């Protein structure tokens, strides 16, 4: 088993195929999209592959230590040009191929006109534990 992080971006990822923002969809299209996402997470729970899923607000800032006795420096809110993560799902799968398959399925969530968004998702493996048996 290995864990993978599936990252969704508000900004910074290449444009998806079906690139219409949600405020232009019909109510039914929004409902269908949310249903798809919930069903996807439920399916992973039932297969024992779901670890965590969280969504992030759009607001935030960069922050950095600025020396002893001084308040931290912040840079923000995020400029329009910056990469902006929208949320993640962590999955625990038997293989990289399975993780890819699931990420592809998530990217197929329906958008405008009920057609798949083809959203670009980032997939990142977690470092695992050092194996007990090495020889």
């Amino acid at each position: 088993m290995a864990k993978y992080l599936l990252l969704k971006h508000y900004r910074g990822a290449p444009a998806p195929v079906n690139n219409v923002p949600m405020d232009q969809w019909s109510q039914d299209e929004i409902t269908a999209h949310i249903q798809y996402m919930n069903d996807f997470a439920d399916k992973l729970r039932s297969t024992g592959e779901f670890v965590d899923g969280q969504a992030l607000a759009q607001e935030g800032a960069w922050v950095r230590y600025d020396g002893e006795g001084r308040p931290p420096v912040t840079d923000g809110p995020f400029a329009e040009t910056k990469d902006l993560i929208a949320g993640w799902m962590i999955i625990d799968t038997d293989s990289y191929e399975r993780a890819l398959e699931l990420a592809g399925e998530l990217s197929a969530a329906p958008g405008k006109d009920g057609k798949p968004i083809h959203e670009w998702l980032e997939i990142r493996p977690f470092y695992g534990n050092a194996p007990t048996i090495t020889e």
Partner: protein
Amino acid sequence: MDEALLRSLTPAVLGILVRRGADFAAAEDAVQDALVEAVRMWPDDPPRDPKGWLVTAAWRKFLDATRADTARRRREDLVDAEPEQGPASDTDDTLQLYFLCAHPSLTPSSAVALTLRAVGGLTTRQIAQAYLVPEATMAQRISRAKKTVGDVRFDQPGDVATVLRVLYLVFNEGYSGDVDLAAEAIRLTRQLFAAIDHPEVAGLLALMLLHHARRASRTEGGRLVPLAEQDRGKWDTRLIAEGVEILQAALARDRLGEFQAQAAIAALHADAPEAAETDWVQIVEWYDELAKLTDSPVVRLNRAVAVGEADGPRAGLKALAELDDSLPRYSAVAAYLHERDGDLGTAARLYVDAAEKASNLAEREYLTRQAARLNN
């Protein structure tokens, strides 16, 4: 077994241990252990005197723990002190616990956690689940909180306002995991209401009951349903009647406070058989009272909505213009008022902006849907 009954005995049992000379942290651990034992044993062997049983069990746990980690001498001192039951009543003990757990030296999150555990009798695991943090984190938070209040003397009167703020926070968290925090907050506020005669305690209890009464209608399939569109047939009329009765008795005493004013607004909404029949003029008056009591910008934002209903969207927008546009939900209110004023393009843009600033997913979805409704 009635677990709520069991947990309702928690503060009195804990109070008795502390009064017998146990330090708060150790007493609290002992009561938790006794509760666990009760859950295990009572179904097969229910005690005749549940409270007496719990006091005996908790005291034994406390002595065991004391024996385990300190000198025998101290234990003997405590055993000697045991007969001292003191004149204090259960009510006083319960009240002191509320004050202690909401002590001003605690941060809000610590006060909430300690209240749920020591007064509410919830386990650390249940509290951790309710607040979606690891159990070890919550255990540490509670243990630090207990240390913080360890030196607070148990006989000093506390400030009811701090207790009410903690209970309000618990209620507002709603429910997640297997613990219904709103119901728990109501239970703890009822208990406080029984222990102390204070119009703001009544005000908060009424406020909670009136909001809880609408719970079944507030979401549909996970989606937020705004007040005006809620199915009022689903409102719990029993809770509304109780809330109104408690509120009226409190208001009659003429010591107005912010919770009574908020409850009065909730009562006016509850009183309208249909959204269109809402008495917005009176609601605006209550917001004026509330603004005098709190001077909170959030209150004035809500007031702008009420003005928009009472005197029309233009008047609402005018009230809104006096407020800082960086306030949470400012865009959402502006969007709503512009839509009512017929400026659908501006409203749609503002709904998108409001969705981007939403602090939770349910609100974000709701606001996005509003934008989409106007754009289609």
